[in-house]
């Protein structure tokens, strides 16, 4: 591996900008770090170059640990967004800079300069000043300058950011061909997914300082694991899907809050499905579809954009009414974005307002256990208070999912099993009644459950612990899904009895490491691990009380039941959010 990052973390004023990023880039690979502004991608790149020191973690280049090595001695080439050419030096002098610093002989310098200028397609420009060149040419010079000392790694920080579209494409080609020709390991940072697809052998998508997923462009585009990657890499419709009695139901995956959503069935698995706009098919009628029928809808918006037509379809009541079972539902509206090619447009011309049948060629189900949030409370007032919790609202928006509420009495009348089970994550108010609420939900097979103090602040540290191996898989899945949307550091806490023998301790430690590699392999998530000795609940309480702004993800020892000893974790005041998996 030519670049190896191991749990690299960088904080600014206590906030992690780069959060436990582990990554390996192969030799000669073109790796693209993609993410929105503020996702920490540039900081990570600067950390690789040694321009920013990492607070935690290790960085190795070609097997050599360079964590403590200065940028000067890392032998990397760095290209900046604004070129950063030395304006008082000519093009030739700029390119020779690294060689001059290394006291390379003039003849050798001149030879190398000529070679590089030819490589970037600017031969004979040696004597120009940077200000006499166009932006694209300046960036080419910057690339040549970064390559002069034959670095082992080339790092590019949004190199096309300041250029217009046409030059961008040209320069993109140049960089790709230069990289191929030299076979140099390259990491490029960008926020442009088109650029990432065009250049990268492999992509890594970052958000909130975390590296969410890595993979080949087609892999990430067709089979993303997270909502963020699904929507950041091209357009995507996120749909909440439930296998219900009357067939497949769709609900809007949006942050619109609504109360008392009519859920007609016992709890079924709710999943988040991704539908790419180009994977949707439109036809005049269900029978005319060649693909799986999704529903009926009205064309609400229609945009001609050249090669493609963009449509927004409002899936609606009429559609449901016409569906085979003839049952009318009061489902809130769902919008689906669709793109169609010219041949598709010609085959079935559409106008605004028209009723169409929507089919799907391909739907990808995201492997996330946190599909949506349902606040469960005894009164409308307390439900409303919980729904106003800024963190919950923020989380819902970040997850691009639904936040709804369900009002039920604390004790079910006559002990009858309630008809309706909440969808997705059930959210209950923390406090004295919390264990009772949790037990009631668990009894109905509802997991995960989030116990949230009404005034809970966004956590900056997440403690993860599971009591027993049964909960291991579920805890990891929930943790991975949550941490992709929460800018906080995470610690996996292993707790062994205080009187454990040496052998048990070693086994416990090994088990923790297993958990870490499982999280990394299964979810692409890197968490830290710590081992404690003592009584489980006491240790957890101590950890949670040590500082404010923490939350707990807790795997229950037996699915569907809450041990009495765990109650203490849910009833403290002021409390902390607890997510039970």
């Amino acid at each position, binding site marked *: 591996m030519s670049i190896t990052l191991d749990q690299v973390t960088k904080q600014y004023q206590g906030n992690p900008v780069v959060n436990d990023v582990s990554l390996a880039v192969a030799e000669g690979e073109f790796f693209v770090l993609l993410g929105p502004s503020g996702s920490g991608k540039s900081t990570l790149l*600067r950390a690789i*170059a*040694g*321009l920013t020191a990492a607070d935690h973690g290790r960085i190795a280049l070609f097997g050599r640990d360079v964590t403590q090595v*200065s*940028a*000067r*001695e*890392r032998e*990397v*080439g*760095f290209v*900046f967004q*604004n070129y*950063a050419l*030395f*304006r*008082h*030096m*000519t093009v030739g*002098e700029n390119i020779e*800079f*690294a060689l001059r*610093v*290394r006291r390379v002989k003039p003849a050798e310098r001149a030879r190398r300069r000529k070679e590089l200028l030819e490589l970037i397609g600017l031969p004979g420009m040696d*004597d120009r*000043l940077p200000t006499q060149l166009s932006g694209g040419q300046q960036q080419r010079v*910057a690339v040549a*300058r*970064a390559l*002069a*000392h034959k670095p082992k790694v080339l790092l590019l920080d949004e190199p096309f950011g300041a250029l217009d579209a046409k030059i961008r494409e040209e320069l993109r080609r140049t960089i790709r061909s230069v990289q191929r020709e030299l076979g140099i390991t390259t990491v490029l940072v960008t926020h442009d997914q088109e650029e990432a697809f065009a250049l990268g052998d492999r992509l890594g998508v970052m958000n909130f300082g975390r590296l969410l997923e890595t993979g080949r462009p087609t892999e990430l585009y067709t089979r993303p694991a997270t909502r963020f990657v699904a929507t950041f890499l091209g357009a995507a419709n996120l749909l909440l899907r439930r296998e219900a009695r009357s067939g497949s139901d769709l609900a809007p995956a949006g942050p619109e809050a609504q109360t008392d959503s009519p859920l007609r069935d016992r709890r079924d698995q709710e999943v988040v499905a991704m539908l790419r706009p180009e994977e949707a098919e439109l036809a005049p009628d269900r029978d005319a579809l060649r693909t799986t029928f999704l529903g009926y809808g009205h064309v609400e918006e229609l945009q001609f954009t050249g090669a493609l037509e963009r449509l927004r379809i409002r899936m609606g009541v009429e559609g449901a009414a016409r569906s085979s079972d003839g049952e009318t539902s009061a489902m809130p509206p769902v919008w689906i974005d669709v793109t169609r090619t010219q041949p598709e447009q010609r085959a079935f011309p559409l106008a605004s307002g028209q009723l169409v049948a929507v089919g799907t060629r391909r739907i990808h189900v995201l492997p996330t256990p946190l599909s949506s949030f349902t606040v469960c409370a005894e009164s409308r007032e307390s439900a409303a208070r919980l729904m106003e919790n800024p963190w919950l609202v923020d989380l819902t928006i970040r997850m691009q999912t639904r936040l709804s509420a369900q009002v039920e009495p604390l004790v079910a009348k006559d002990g009858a099993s309630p008809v309706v089970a909440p969808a997705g994550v059930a959210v209950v108010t923390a406090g004295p009644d919390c264990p009772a609420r949790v037990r009631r939900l668990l009894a109905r097979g509802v997991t995960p459950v989030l116990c949230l103090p009404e005034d809970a602040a966004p956590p900056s540290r997440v403690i993860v612990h599971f009591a027993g191996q049964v909960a291991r898989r579920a805890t990891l899945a929930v943790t991975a899904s949550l941490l992709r949307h929460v800018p906080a550091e995470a610690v996996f806490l292993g707790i062994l009895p205080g009187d454990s023998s040496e052998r048990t301790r070693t086994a416990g430690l090994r088990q923790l490491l297993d958990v870490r590699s499982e999280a990394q392999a299964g979810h692409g998530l890197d968490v830290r691990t710590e081992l404690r000795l003592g009584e489980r609940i006491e240790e957890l309480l101590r950890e949670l009380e040590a500082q404010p702004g923490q939350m707990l993800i807790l795997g229950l020892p037996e699915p569907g039941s809450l041990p009495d000893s765990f109650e203490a974790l849910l009833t403290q005041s002021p409390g902390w959010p607890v997510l039970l998996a």
Partner: protein
Amino acid sequence: MSGFRQPSVLPGFGLTLGFATFFLSAIVLLPLAALVLKTASMSWAEFLEVVLSPRALASYRLSFGASLVAALINTVFGFIVAWTLVRYDFPGRKILDAMIDMPFALPTAVSGIALTAVFAENGWIGQYLEPYGIKVAYTWLGVTVALTLIGLPFVVRSVQPSLLEVQRDLEDAAETLGATPLYIFRRIIFPTVVPALASGFTLAFARGIGEYGSVIFIAGNLPMKTEITPLLIVIKLEEFDYNGAAALGFVMLAMSFVMLLSINLVQAWARRGVVAARR
């Protein structure tokens, strides 16, 4: 002339040029012309006698010498102050930044008196220098100190914008290319700042030559020793020797003009030279 005309924010090229000419004439050229006329009423012999008298020569040496030394000191320390203000964020930075302009606003007499109090033999700083035989107040050193105080803002304010312009990226780039901090300073930062530093030096120097208020309090004003040319002019005026005062003023004017012009020319030549040498 129409070739010069370009649409601009302010109306009328003719109007603005006319205004600029009138304004410069009324404020700058007319008084200077009066000075030259007054001097011209003297005969050559009279003129030379006043201008080349030993006392006058000594005052030139002090005025120009102390100004030069002060401007050089300011170039070094002004750069450091500007660097600190631009590069570091520390509590009180804004206040320090505002304090730089104080010598602009303070009546020069006030700063002169304050400096005298501090640097006098029993002053806060003076008492510690005394045992080493260093006397600041009432010597040419005092004159230099006063002129340093007056000239500092000129250097700091000239250099600050150009330091802001040296992007961090440039230093980062040089670092990844293998340059040591010293090398980065010499080859990247310094060349970018030199023009601003030179103009700051020129301004501080020019201001030093003309400075009167703060110097007379700390200088002690001993003829032949610590007497600056502006003071000599005032003395001539008090003796109703208007011609003599005008003659000295004319000499200062001529010398300042020649020096400033040559500094500007050297600067322009250096800038061209840099570009030309690289072709």
